[in-house]
């Protein structure tokens, strides 16, 4: 079920991640977290003991009981997660923040990263604003560690694709909480529990209010970019993007202007939905979460 890491040759060689008890304990210490993720007003690590919903479980409880197998992922112990991060943090930038988080959060991030999906690589906290902008305008894949080029996909030979926006959850604790909470959400469970096999179509994507998973100010942990329409048309914007990327990939000078995007700030994520999409696992015996991303409501829809 786990991804074959050797199949992503774009990544440079592994780097050392120190395995020290202090690293484990330091994860949820606010000073350490502030230093790593200071751009967020209140690091989510500081609120792991506050229920996202009145009377509900705390994020820490949800993360602690996270069961990878319920998400269609391979089981992983804390020690295995530590080892996975230590062995792959250098060649998998998506794991870059995993050394700053606690063991329970690290186990969630490692389990997600080992799976077949791309939620962490494309929508996790190590994705930068520049990467979301370049993804939505130039179809550059954030999952490629270095030398991203327009249209190149980290995992398939065809052209990389993107919707009308590219977003991230910019705090690793918030990302892990969102994923772990999502796996327990009844709508997500109904999809994951569907029979999987030859002839079975994947469950439709599920859209869960962000506030249900991260609490009423969950939007504070999100940002991204949305492609600008062309003369008021999103259809024309997608066509222009494809034409621009196609020309660059073929080494031609594009005959259309480079697409542009608008930065999506935290406030744009009020009323946002978290989208969970599904795929068959490696042996097609169960459904797995193929991606999880935050989809802000467009103002023209509200």
């Amino acid at each position, binding site marked *: 079920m786990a991804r074959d890491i050797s199949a992503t040759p774009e990544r440079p060689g592994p780097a050392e991640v120190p395995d020290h008890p202090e690293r484990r304990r330091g994860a949820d210490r606010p000073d350490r977290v502030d230093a790593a993720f200071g751009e967020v007003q209140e690091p989510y690590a500081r609120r792991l003991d506050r229920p996202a919903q009145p009377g509900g479980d705390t994020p820490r409880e949800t993360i602690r009981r996270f069961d990878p197998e319920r998400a269609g992922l391979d089981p992983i112990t804390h020690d295995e997660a530590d080892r996975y991060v230590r062995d792959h943090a250098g060649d998998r930038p998506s794991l870059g923040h995993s050394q700053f988080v606690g063991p329970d959060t690290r186990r969630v991030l490692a389990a997600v990263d080992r799976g077949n999906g791309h939620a962490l690589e494309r929508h996790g906290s190590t994705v930068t604003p520049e990467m979301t902008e370049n993804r939505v305008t130039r179809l550059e894949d954030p999952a490629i560690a270095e030398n991203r080029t327009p249209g190149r996909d980290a995992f398939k030979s065809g052209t990389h694709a993107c919707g009308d926006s590219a977003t991230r959850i910019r705090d690793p604790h918030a990302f892990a909480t969102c994923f772990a909470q999502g796996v327990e959400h009844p709508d997500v469970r109904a999809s994951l529990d569907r029979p999987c096999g030859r002839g079975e179509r994947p469950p439709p994507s599920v859209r869960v209010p962000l506030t249900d998973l991260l609490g009423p100010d969950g939007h504070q942990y999100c940002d991204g970019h949305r492609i600008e329409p062309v003369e008021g048309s999103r259809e024309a914007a997608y066509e222009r993007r494809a034409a621009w990327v196609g020309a660059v990939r073929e080494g031609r000078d594009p005959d259309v202007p480079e697409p542009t995007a608008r930065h999506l700030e935290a406030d744009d994520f009020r009323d946002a939905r978290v989208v969970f999409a599904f*795929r068959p696992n490696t042996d097609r015996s169960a459904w797995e979460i193929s991606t999880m991303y935050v989809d802000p409501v467009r103002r023209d829809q509200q």
Partner: protein
Amino acid sequence: MDDRYWQQDPDAPFATLLDLVETYCHPEAYDEAYDDFKVAVHLPERDPIFDRFKEQLAEAIRDPSQVPVDALLRAAVYPDGSAEKFLTRLWRDLYPGEPLPTG
């Protein structure tokens, strides 16, 4: 507000078309989704929903004016420039050798 009305109302016009297009063609669909789609529509043991899909796709190609373009664009984020071009490409990819449905 969630605008994926086809998920809430399977009897809405072209709901099956929109549902499967979003599942298999949306940019955030899994890597092999489009290839799986091409296989799934031809499996002998396929879900009957794939036959409803084919009927709705044919209906949409025959009369593109009936297609809810905004919903289709939301479901597929197609780069083709028009719903008509996207639907035609989809038919040719899924049912190669079968003529395009006409009036």
